[in-house]
C-alpha cells in the first residue's frame, strides 16, 4: 500500500509514449500546414531576432527582468566598472566585477513558472542552471559563451529524457542584452536605481548577515516601452552585505496589463556564493546515453 504522501510522486510517474500512429497523424498534419510564405521570407531576409521579439512590450519586460537578474548575477564581469555612485554600491560593482565564479538560487513564484527554483553556476565564460520542481531536478541548462560569434544553449530535460541544443549567432542574439545597452552596464544600473524614485531600506540582518538595501517602485526603472502597457507596477530590492560588499538578496516583482491580459513576474534571488572557483567540468553538458538528442540549428532563419 502506498503512503499517502507519495500520491503526487506517484502521479508524476505516470508515463505513456505517444504511438507511432499518433506521430504519423500529427506530422502529416504539420506537413500540410501552410509554410512560411515567400512574402514573409522576403520581409525577413536578414531578420533581427531581437527586434522581432522586442516588438512585444511583455517580452521586453521579461527580457528586462532577465537582464536585470543577469546583471546582478554576474554579467558585471564582462563590463568595466571604473566609476561608481556610492559607498556600498561602489563596493557592489567592484566586488561583483572581480568575482571568479558565482553560485546562486533563483525562485520564481510566477503562476506560469515550470520550476520551483533554479541553482545557477556562472563563470565568465559558462553558465549552468539546474531547475528543480518538488525537490527533483527537471532540467539542466548549459550556456557556452566561448564561441567567437555564437552562443550555445543546451537544455537537458530530465523528465522527458531528451536534450535540445540551440546555437545563437551573437549578432542576432543581442535581444538578450541589446534592448538598451545601458541595462548591461552596472554603473548605469546602480545609477538608474538611484536616479529613479527610490528609498534606501536601511540595514537589516538577512540570515545572519547585516545588509543594506535599496528599493525602487518607479516604473521609469524599466525604461521606455515600445507599446502600450497598462498598470505597469515594479518593485526591485537589492540587499548587499555591509561587510563583504556582495549582493545577498535580490527581489523583483513586476506586473502589467497587455492586450487585456495581466502579466506578472516575481523572483527572489538568494543564497549567493561569490568568488567561488568552479570546476570547469560542471559546465560540460551531461546528457545520459538514453536521452534523445535534438538540435535546433536553424535559428539563423529567424
Amino acid at each position, binding site marked *: 500500500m502506498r503512503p499517502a504522501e507519495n*500520491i503526487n510522486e506517484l502521479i508524476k510517474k505516470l508515463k*505513456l*509514449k505517444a504511438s507511432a500512429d*499518433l506521430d504519423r*497523424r*500529427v506530422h502529416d498534419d504539420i506537413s500540410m500546414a501552410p509554410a512560411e510564405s515567400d512574402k*514573409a521570407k522576403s520581409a525577413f531576409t536578414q531578420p533581427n531576432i531581437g527586434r522581432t*521579439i522586442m516588438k512585444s512590450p511583455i517580452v521586453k519586460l521579461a527580457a528586462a527582468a532577465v537582464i536585470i537578474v543577469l546583471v546582478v548575477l554576474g554579467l558585471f564581469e564582462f563590463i568595466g566598472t571604473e566609476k561608481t555612485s556610492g559607498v556600498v554600491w561602489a563596493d557592489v560593482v567592484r566586488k561583483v566585477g572581480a568575482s571568479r565564479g558565482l553560485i546562486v538560487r533563483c525562485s520564481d513564484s510566477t503562476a506560469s513558472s515550470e520550476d520551483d527554483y533554479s541553482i545557477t553556476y556562472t563563470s565568465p565564460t559558462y553558465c549552468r542552471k539546474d531547475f528543480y520542481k518538488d525537490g527533483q531536478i527537471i532540467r539542466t541548462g548549459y550556456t557556452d559563451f566561448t564561441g567567437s560569434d555564437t552562443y550555445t544553449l543546451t537544455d537537458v530535460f530530465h523528465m522527458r529524457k531528451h536534450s*535540445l541544443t540551440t546555437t545563437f549567432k551573437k549578432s542576432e542574439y543581442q535581444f538578450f542584452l541589446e534592448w538598451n545597452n545601458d541595462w548591461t552596464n552596472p554603473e548605469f544600473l546602480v545609477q538608474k536605481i538611484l536616479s529613479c524614485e527610490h528609498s534606501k531600506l536601511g540595514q537589516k540582518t538577512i540570515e545572519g548577515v547585516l545588509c543594506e538595501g535599496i528599493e525602487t517602485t518607479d516604473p521609469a526603472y524599466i525604461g521606455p516601452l515600445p507599446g502600450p502597457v497598462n498598470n505597469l507596477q515594479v518593485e526591485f530590492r537589492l540587499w548587499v552585505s555591509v561587510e563583504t560588499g556582495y549582493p545577498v538578496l535580490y527581489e523583483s516583482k513586476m506586473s502589467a496589463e497587455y492586450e487585456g491580459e495581466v502579466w506578472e513576474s516575481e523572483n527572489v534571488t538568494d543564497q549567493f556564493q561569490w568568488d567561488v572557483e568552479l570546476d570547469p567540468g560542471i559546465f560540460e553538458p551531461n546528457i545520459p546515453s538514453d536521452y534523445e538528442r535534438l538540435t535546433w540549428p536553424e535559428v539563423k532563419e529567424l
Partner: protein
Amino acid sequence: MLEDKLLILKFNRGNREALRSIYEKYKNDLVTLAAALLNDVSSAEDVVHDVFVGFIESSRKFRLTGSLKGYLATCVANNARNRNKAGRRHQNVEASVVMPDANRPDAAAMFGEELRQLGWALEQLPYEQREVLLLHSYSGMKFKAIAQQQKISINTVQGRYRYAVDKLRSMLNGEVKK
C-alpha cells in the same frame, strides 16, 4: 521558457520545424494527461491529435501569455472534458450496450503493473476532481492558472484538489474497499 518563446515566435511565422519541436517536446506528457483523464489511450491520442490540429490552425494568431506546457495541457483538458460529456450522453442514450468498467481491463492497467492501483483509483474520482488533480500534480499548473483557465474560483479548484487527494489517499491506503 525562453526556448518555448522562441519556438512560438517561429511557429507564428509558420515554421513547421518549430511545430514539430513543440509536438515532440510535449507529446508524451499530453497523451499521458489525456489518458489519465479519459481512462483510454486511444481516445487520449485522438484528443492530442485534435489539440495539435487546432494549434496548427492558430499559428499566425497564437500568443503565448503563460507557459506553453500549461496552455497545451489546458487544451487537452478542455477537449477531454468535451469528450467525457459526449461519452456520458452517449452512455445515457445507449446504456444497454455500454460495457461496465470491469470489462475494460486496459483502463487501470494502461500505466503498467506498478501504477495499476493508481490508475484504478484515479478512475474512481469524479471527473472535475481528477482534472484538477492531474493539471496540478502532473502538468504542474498552479491553482491560480487552473482557476483562470477554467473560469472558476481558486477556492473551488483547491477544494476539488483536496477532495481528490483525500479520496486517493483513502483508496490507495485501503480505507475504501474496491
